């Protein structure tokens, strides 16, 4: 059974449509990512699930129960906000206890669960600190513990990593994904960062202009993009009309091997990126193309001005709708 289901969800503000008729099923224990550029409606969708504002049309089901008409405090949903939204006048432990207090859980049980939640996010000894006395990563963990301690049916994460520096962000990616799988909690994660989406998700819903363009596993999305938007938004792509070829799947050759896609061209620029080399080409007919080649000691190197073949095996070329 799906844990969370959006059925024909629509959100309009006056004449602008933020979410345009969206259907989505999130399975029990699944890590679902809403991925898209800013303004695509992903954060609005999150707000609709949380109940911060009502949908213009459509229904939302949590464990089969229709919740679109319920205020946020009657839904069983935990939210981690982009700015963490920790209560600055409470300690970390008080922040985590807030949801339990609101649910009138007795103080003994509350203390126990707060302790467990703080342990879960490795903040066992920092419970008495105020948010101001914590680092960005620690605040993030408190926010996570606060949302998890109420054992919600669905956990919503709104770009929770965007305020962290690069190194910490990469650590937290793995940590959050691991924690999510360990707890088996149904999760909807909102991000504009394709790297995060690919690494963390069971499935990704790519959104554009208030609609879902494609839903699939990270490999589906990356290797079998359904639309030109998805192909362009995730990773880089060479387009030849409706035919698309990933730069790392293409090869430069001296001769046309035959049996796949091949075009004659000239190397315009070579970028040395360490692990890979990036060849920028101009093909016959004036089209531009990009090839990402592994920095392999035995592979032939090309230089700007070389005449080459841009080739790709048939299985690496896909037709887009």
């Amino acid at each position, binding site marked *: 059974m799906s844990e969370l289901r959006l059925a024909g969800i629509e959100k309009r503000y006056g004449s602008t449509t933020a979410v345009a008729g969206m259907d989505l099923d999130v399975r029990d224990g699944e890590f679902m990512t809403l991925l898209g550029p800013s303004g695509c409606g992903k954060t609005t969708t999150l707000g609709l699930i949380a109940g911060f504002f009502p949908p213009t049309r459509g229904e939302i089901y949590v464990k089969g129960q229709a919740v679109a008409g319920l205020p946020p*405090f009657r839904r069983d*949903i935990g939210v981690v906000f982009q700015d963490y*939204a920790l209560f600055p006048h409470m300690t970390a432990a008080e922040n985590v206890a807030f949801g339990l207090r609101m649910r009138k859980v007795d103080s003994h049980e509350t203390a126990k669960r707060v302790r467990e939640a703080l342990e879960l996010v490795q903040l066992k000894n920092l419970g008495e600190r105020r948010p101001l006395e914590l680092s960005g990563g620690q605040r993030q963990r408190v926010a996570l513990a606060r949302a998890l301690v109420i054992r919600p049916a669905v956990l919503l994460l709104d770009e929770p990593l965007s305020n962290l520096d690069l190194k910490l962000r990469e650590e937290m990616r793995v940590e959050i994904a691991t924690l999510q799988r360990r707890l088996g909690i149904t999760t909807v994660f909102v991000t504009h960062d394709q790297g995060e989406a690919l690494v963390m998700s069971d499935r990704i819903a790519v959104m554009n202009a208030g609609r879902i363009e494609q839903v699939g596993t990270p490999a589906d999305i990356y290797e079998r993009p359904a639309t030109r938007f998805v192909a362009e938004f995730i990773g880089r792509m060479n387009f030849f009309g409706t035919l698309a070829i990933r730069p790392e799947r293409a090869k430069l050759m001296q001769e046309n091997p035959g049996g796949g896609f091949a075009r004659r061209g000239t190397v315009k620029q070579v970028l040395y990126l360490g692990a890979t080399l990036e060849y920028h080409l101009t093909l016959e007919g004036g089209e531009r193309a990009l090839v990402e080649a592994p920095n392999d000691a035995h592979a032939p190197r090309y230089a700007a001005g070389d005449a080459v073949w841009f080739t790709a095996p048939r299985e690496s070329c896909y037709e887009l709708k």
Partner: protein
Amino acid sequence: MSPWAGLRVVVIAIYVFMLGPILITAAVSFNASNRSQFPPRGFSLQWWEKAFSAEWIDPLWFSFKLGCAAAVISTLLALPLAFALARYRFPGRAAMVALTLGPLMLPALVTGVGLLQLFQYAGWREQIGFTALLVGHVVICLPFAVRTVAISLHSLPPSLELAAASLGASRARTLWHVVFPLIKSGIVAGAVFAFVHSFTDVNLSLFLVRPGEQPITVKILGFLEFGFAPTLAAVSVITLLLPLVLVAVVERLTGLGDFIYGERERV
């Protein structure tokens, strides 16, 4: 001359012109003669004794009561007003902004005359005195209270309220457990501004007094018509110290200065 030296001159000038008259007034109140001389001739406490007579203590106490009532009522009105203005867009919002800030632009004198006429035409002559003064003071204090509460609400990220809601707090409990504790210093600051504004007002009060129900400022103004006696110096010092002491106490208790001179960092 370095810019710091220039700044120092300005600061010294401000202190001289702000504190100078106060110190002179204080000194004059200890005169032994009945003329308001500076520097004072001799030393006596006779004027202070007079200042603490019923003639002066009654209007002082009246002003204090009036200020407290005006501060409490305007702050209570300011809370929902500021909340609506800071959080929601609704038809008539612009009119409400104008209404709450209007009295700030209008000379209180005009408001006073208007209120006097209103009370007379409406047949509320009996209410002129404390009630009419209270109505007038609430009107002129409201903008201060609304502004300060609205500023503290604006500094509160909306995600805090959403977080509370998602954790199971109803609207009322969100206000009680999250919003109020965080805007407390703004509310107190609003109330203190309202009190001080009420306590120091003379323009509006002038029109709405009746015998036995007049604030200290109107009493002082009336007394001035007969000249300046050292008694007045002593009364002025008391009138000045009362709001200062209040502000100092509140500052100690709630950190009012943090509100006025920049919020503590928020998460």
